[in-house]
């Protein structure tokens, strides 16, 4: 019954009060659910590294050090090494070893979010904004143009995702900007569909009619009244989409259709380290792999938590 109440309230003009309650609910969830808390920590860590990663890394992620293919120090030596570096001013060790060009794997692993997270966040945000606006229009106005829009969006979704992204990036030039554009094209239809379905559910509600009856112009009803009530599913989808965008970005770089070496990027690092792994030099691939694995899991956990909260 309580759930029903909050839903009904959110559809009246009182929705301003809801975000606060949702914040409290989410804080409670953070304290009680380990998985959600874990996801949130990963989320903040990834954002922190995206901003500060290259600045706090002990070595330049793009410049070779003299040590080629150095193994990482044993894990039980880490506390002593950490103490020496921080308090006695010793040269920082290669925590994760170095790769076969002499690049410090640790520095590159924590600098990579600057590439991966920025691409993923920007593409996910751009496709959310674009998809939400287009979905709102498609749900609100029913005419030939929006019908065409939906058919195009259907068509885009029938494309093989990975191959389309490879084509777009490889043929337009392998750089960050083109990857963002390609991911945006791939993810926008999802948001269009999501928002449109939500808008269609909202449009027959009383408050929409009321907003119209008092003389609001159509666009104002759409953007000021319907949009805030139908954006939540897109916001939830955003977390999941960021995770998958990281996956796709690194996958593209892995197969050679993403960023160019020596850009610090997890997928590229894994791919460059792959041939070394059968020679026993596991650290070049394994550490960035753990980073990417945890990151995507974290975003999925947050996305799941938000979705559960919304239901």
């Amino acid at each position, binding site marked *: 019954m309580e759930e029903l109440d909050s839903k009904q309230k959110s559809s009246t003009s009182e929705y301003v009060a809801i975000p606060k309650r949702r914040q409290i609910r989410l804080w409670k969830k953070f304290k009680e659910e380990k*998985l959600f808390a874990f996801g949130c920590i990963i989320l903040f860590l990834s954002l922190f590294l995206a901003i500060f990663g290259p600045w706090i890394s002990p070595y330049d992620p793009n410049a070779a050090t003299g040590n080629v293919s150095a193994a990482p120090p044993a894990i039980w030596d880490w506390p002593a090494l950490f103490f020496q570096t921080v308090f006695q001013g010793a040269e920082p060790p290669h925590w994760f070893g170095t790769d076969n060009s002499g690049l410090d794997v640790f520095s590159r692993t924590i600098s990579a979010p600057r590439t991966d997270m920025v691409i993923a966040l920007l593409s996910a945000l751009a496709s959310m904004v674009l998809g939400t606006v287009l979905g709102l229009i498609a749900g609100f106005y029913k005419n030939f143009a929006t019908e065409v829009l939906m058919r195009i969006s*259907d*068509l885009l979704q*029938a*494309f*093989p*995702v*990975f*191959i*389309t992204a*490879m*084509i*777009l990036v*490889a*043929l*337009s*030039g392998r750089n960050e900007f083109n990857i963002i554009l390609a991911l945006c094209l791939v993810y926008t239809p999802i948001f269009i569909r999501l928002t449109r379905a939500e808008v269609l559910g909202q449009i027959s509600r009383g408050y929409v009619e009321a907003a119209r009856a008092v003389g609001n112009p159509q666009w104002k009803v759409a953007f000021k009244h319907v949009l805030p009530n139908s954006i939540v599913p897109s916001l939830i989808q955003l977390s999941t989409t960021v*995770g*998958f965008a990281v*996956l796709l970005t*690194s*996958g593209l770089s*892995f*197969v*050679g*259709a993403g960023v160019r070496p020596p850009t610090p990027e997890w*997928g590229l690092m*894994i*791919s460059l*380290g*792959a041939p070394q*792994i*059968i020679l*026993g030099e*596991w650290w070049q*691939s*394994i550490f960035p*792999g753990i980073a*990417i*694995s945890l990151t*995507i*899991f974290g*975003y*999925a*956990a947050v996305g*799941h938590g938000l979705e559960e909260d919304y239901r």
Partner: protein
Amino acid sequence: MVRRFVVKRLLIALLQLVGISIVVFFMIRLLPADPVARLVGFNASEEAVQQATESLGLHYSSGQQLLNYVGIFSVVDEPGIINGYLGKSWVTSEPILHEVTRFLPITLEMITYALILAFIIALPLGMSSATRPGGAADKFTFVWGLFAGSQPEFWWGILFVFIFFFALQQAGLPHAPAPLGRLDPLLEAPNSITGFILIDSLLRGRLDIFFNAAHHLMLPVLTLVFVVSGPIVKMIRQNMIRVIRSDYILYARSAGLPPRKIAFYALRAAMAPAMTLTAIIYGFLLGGAVPVELIYSIGGIGEYSIRSIISFDYPAIQGTVLVIAMVSLIIYLALDIVHAMLDPRITF
């Protein structure tokens, strides 16, 4: 009724394919890539560039190129898509259809086994977690579904190579073969009947090839099963929980039906959406298994597509996208029919 449904869906699929081919055709021509320069090299003379452009048919307008490609009002003496001809590769000069039919079954075989296995594993996991919600099995299944469903398959592929090939070999234990193809270098694949190497080798009575191929397929399939089972488990679990709470299961219970029978009813209803999801994943993997194919040097359609994309081989790119889209649409259609058979509420 069924026939009408199938015909209607086939028509829609056909329209979609036409749309996809046109979009891909113009998309790759709109992007700022220079296939001629890639083909003749950057130091080539003006005449060489001119000649290459003409031999590729790129000196026609885009519209005319499309007509040449489709095969209506064509001004070149090659057949078009209308005649079932996808063009010739610019790199190997082989007909695209030959190359695609050679590489496609390799990928199909790998992902078919992976999805069948994933489904078989996911079914009991999802069911057991739904019958005792909140139990240990349920918690494990839930975390597994969330975790595995969001993992980079290429990293797990490399991890598996490290563990099951390198580490086991170092330890002197039986280990997986090196990730260098579908068979040991000295063995030759049997002549293709179905294109599936396991089935072909059995049909030709070559048990040695069968076991060798199975050994080589083990790790790539394991990698895909690991990643793909996540979403399927999640789907089955969610649906089982939903179905078990529904009225008709309550009715079946109060009518005194044995639990095994009730579980079967619930499973039937919960399986349908899971199978739809499996079909979607199948379609995704057709073009999305590229990293796994590269890691294990499988040489399937994914490797072929990345090769043609990087060498700007336009006809090959168009052909691959078209064939992959076609196969996935056929699979979606087949699954929809199965879906309707499983779920009596769906009518055509």
